[in-house]
């Protein structure tokens, strides 16, 4: 992993030195991909169904999905969401659901209120390449709410082409 990253850095550096005029403008406007977060995939149920709402709702999970590099919005991407809420634990099927991004690459899913579990009020979101034909790499996120009283959480995905 480290050696791979180091190789990438070295290759990028070498390319930048070799052709600065070509590489530098692209890097200046390049949007870095969102890395998978530690624990992001915990208790994921792969292929959770597309839903209009998880449970009774009351908490709004929103976000954007863009392409790394040029930042182009990605419509029709499938985002999976789950959390420990007032209606169930992370492992319960009823705590899971998926939604699609709109034409501007935005998504919003109504779900039950997230409550602190395992020491932090947090959600889980996934872009799972196995359930999407868009040709991007899988990303698992585990954002933490600023306060347990928050009623919304906004999450940005920047996907790396596979």
């Amino acid at each position, binding site marked *: 992993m480290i050696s791979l990253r180091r190789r990438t850095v070295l290759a990028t550096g070498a390319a930048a030195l070799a052709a600065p005029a070509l590489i530098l403008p692209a890097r200046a406007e390049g949007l870095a991909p969102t890395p998978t977060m530690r*624990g992001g995939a915990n*208790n994921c149920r792969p292929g959770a169904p597309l839903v209009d709402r998880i449970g009774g709702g009351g908490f709004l999970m929103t976000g954007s999905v863009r392409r790394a590099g040029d930042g182009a919005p990605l419509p029709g991407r499938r985002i999976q969401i789950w959390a420990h*809420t007032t209606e169930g*634990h992370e*492992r319960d099927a009823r705590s899971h659901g998926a939604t699609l991004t709109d034409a501007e690459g935005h998504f919003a899913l109504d779900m039950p209120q997230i409550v*602190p579990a*395992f*020491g*932090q009020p947090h959600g889980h979101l996934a872009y799972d390449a196995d359930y999407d034909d868009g040709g991007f790499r899988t990303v698992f996120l585990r954002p933490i709410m600023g306060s*347990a009283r928050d009623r919304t959480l906004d999450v940005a995905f920047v996907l790396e082409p596979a």
Partner: protein
Amino acid sequence: MGLALGVPLAASSSSPLLAWREPVYIVAGFAGVVALGLLLVQPLLVGGHLPGPRGRVAHRWVGAGLVAAIVVHVAGLWITSPPDVIDALTFTSPTPFSGWGVVAMWAAFGAAGLAAIRRRMRPRLWRPAHSALVAVVVIGTVVHALLIQGTMGTVSKAVLCACVLAAAGAVMSRLRAWAPLLRR
């Protein structure tokens, strides 16, 4: 001491978070609170600060209870969410408090293990070793507890943690836990 123990125990057994937790998760969290409470009792027993003639005997029994509480805490969390506990035990958890708790757990098992083989150890080594492990237990547990958004009230938790630190520090320094190492 009744207040320092009673208030956080009462807070954690009436927390609104409990309404959204299954029994095994509730028991796991409560076992953690009990373990923190026993950490306050332990130095007071060994220092002879609690009523009753046999403080050191009680210290051993409470120590066994502390180990049991830790086991219930970790096992209950494992049943509630296995991947989160595996992350914690392998020090790959996203939550900063997990590692402190795991270090405290192993140090507590170590301190209890030393207690079990005390007669086979040289006395001048035993007390500093047991005390050093206990210092890791106390500091690790306090940081673990303070960083968690859990069922204990914030203020009552901070007060209990301060009492735990003060009691352990005071008894260790009064008994001069490190003194055998200085003797030549």
